[in-house]
């Protein structure tokens, strides 16, 4: 099977869905680039991270729309296009920029169907780059999925690998609800086997990345890689872990998490976001409520601290949860009883 990066896999999904369904449009800042430039070359960018490369030459300006830097208008236009029967894939270059257009997500997209009734649907996808690790500092590094997950009416996808990213992007475009699709910038270059043909992965179905009887580790997006590395190290000392990647945080596959915790009796949740109202807290609360009797040790949360993302490399690496911290947390659950 061909090996592709997450960048290539998402790009392929966009190509395939645009080819399959003429209602799919792509819009955002520099999704092609070069319009109005002095070289006359279009597709001067193809997205700043290259995710939308090749779409403009193939599908044309009517369906691949470069916008001014106007996030509120981008998402508002995507909302309107979706209500009017198109299937827009809007790009917010960095998830942090969502602040400028949050009304269109929070009060508009998320609520159309509930407010307007079942005749209304808003089948849009909002793609955003997220995550720390590049020294991009406080306004270009946040993992804002807890914010979106907290909003009823939105679906939230946070893939951890290229295979899932392709299948989940195709599912997101075909879905009739607004989907927030968050791509971790440190994963764009990571690759795995990805089939050439289109396929859709269902939302709300977690992936069991690694199986073990001693500790359940639930990890999100980039943290799945770190959890896997931690599990390898733990296995060497005889601690065997289930590593669960929920893949979508809304809907969340509660069943797989609960089933695993009922078997292991120990839970570590790894979340790159700050701890308050995080996915780590969300999962911990769910387990405390529904699997309390099975727990052999307190739940451990490995998260970023309650701070903005620092710029300096040394501080940023302290900010991001590390495999080492996950190992320590798992050991701590084993030591409890």
């Amino acid at each position, binding site marked *: 099977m061909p090996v592709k990066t997450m960048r290539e896999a998402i790009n392929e999904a966009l190509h395939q869905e645009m080819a399959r369904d003429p209602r799919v449009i792509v819009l955002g*800042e*520099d999704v092609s*680039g*070069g*319009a*109005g*430039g*002095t*070289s*006359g*070359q279009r597709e*001067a*960018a193809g997205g*700043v991270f290259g995710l939308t490369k090749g779409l403009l030459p193939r599908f044309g300006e009517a369906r691949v729309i*470069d*916008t*001014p*830097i*106007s*996030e*509120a*208008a981008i998402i508002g236009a995507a909302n309107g296009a979706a209500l009017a029967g198109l299937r827009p894939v809007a790009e917010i270059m960095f998830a*942090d*920029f969502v*602040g*400028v257009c949050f009304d269109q997500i929070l009060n508009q997209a998320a609520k159309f169907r509930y407010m307007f009734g079942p005749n209304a649907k808003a089948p849009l996808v909002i793609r955003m780059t997220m995550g720390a690790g*590049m*020294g*991009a*500092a*406080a*306004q*270009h590094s946040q993992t804002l999925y807890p914010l979106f997950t907290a909003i009823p009416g939105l679906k939230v996808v946070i893939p951890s690998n290229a295979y899932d990213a392709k299948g989940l992007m195709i599912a997101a475009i075909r879905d009739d609800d607004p989907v927030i699709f968050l791509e971790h910038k440190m994963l764009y270059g990571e690759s795995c086997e990805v089939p050439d043909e289109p396929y859709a992965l269902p939302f709300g179905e977690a992936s069991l990345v690694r199986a073990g009887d001693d500790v359940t580790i639930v990890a999100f997006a980039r943290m799945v890689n770190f959890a896997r590395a931690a599990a390898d190290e733990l296995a060497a000392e005889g601690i065997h872990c289930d590593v669960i990647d929920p893949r979508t945080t809304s809907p969340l596959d509660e069943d797989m998490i609960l089933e695993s915790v009922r078997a292991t009796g120990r839970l570590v949740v790894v979340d790159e976001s700050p701890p308050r109202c995080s996915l780590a807290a969300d999962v911990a609360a769910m387990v405390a409520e529904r699997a309390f009797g099975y727990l052999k040790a307190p739940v451990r949360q490995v998260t970023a*601290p*309650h*701070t*903005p993302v*620092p*710029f*300096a*490399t*040394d*501080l*940023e690496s*302290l*900010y991001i949860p590390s495999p080492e911290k996950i190992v320590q947390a798992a050991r701590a659950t084993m030591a409890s009883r």
Partner: protein
Amino acid sequence: MQLSREQLLRAFRSMVKIREFEERLHIENPKGEIPGFLHLYAGQEAVAVGLCEQLTERDYIISTHRGHGHCIAKGCDIPAMMLEIYGRAEGLCNGKGGSMHIADVTKGMMGANGIVGGGQPIAVGAAIACKMRGDGSVAASFTGDGAANQGTVFEAMNLAVVLQVPKVFVFEMNGYSEHTGGSYSTGAKDPVQRIRGFGIPVFEADGFDFFSVHDAVRQALEVSRNGGGPTAVYAQTTRYYGHFEGDPMLYRAPGEVERLRAENDCLQNFRARVTQAGLLAVDDLDEIETQIRALVEHSVSAAKAGRGHAPAELLTNVYASY
């Protein structure tokens, strides 16, 4: 208005500081010691300096992601800025802000800003404070081709007019909105008229010419400092580098930057003007360049050798108190 010898030397010094700082970062960045993104200001020096030379520490500026030039023009310490860009603990913002978030509020420099269009409303608030103080101070924001189409900027312009606050909207149009031409992203055929439509008087300037910018700013400040409400300065300029360092600039015609550097460089324009008029000697200018090069050299060495952080520093300054 004829500037004094001291004023001319100071303005040239400030422009050279920006140029040398940015050119050096362009050389240093590929070495991999600088975290994150750099957006360089080289080419646009006349705008920042044409404004900031007429401001005092009581006046405020709010900058953009392309902020180094604004910081330097407003008097931020160069070695401390370099330490910041290298992410050192002794940096101007303790290494926690970096290139896109350099600030020195003690000098009225209220931050570079990573959000396009983030600064303009903030500057309106600073202008409210200026108006309440009643001391003739002003707040200025910088807006490029990209931010010129953010709703936040339109809201800020209208609010400034409604409140009649002393706010100078500096439009420094380098021709590009990231990787897209400004002529595409702004629909209005006459963007200056669009600003006037908000009720803001606009003073146009040649952004390649320090004296032109200085003159437009002087007129704007005369209005805004004396109770005349918000004003705008609109200057066409260019950037010598990409949107960010590493941008291959496929949207620019081959040779465009080289031609602009050779034919219409704001520093060379300044040099020619003052030497031909006999206002400054070539030696005066050369000496400044030598001094600034040494300053930047020292700043880079110090930044490379700068102190890392103690782990506890991760948790400081999230709040004033908690």
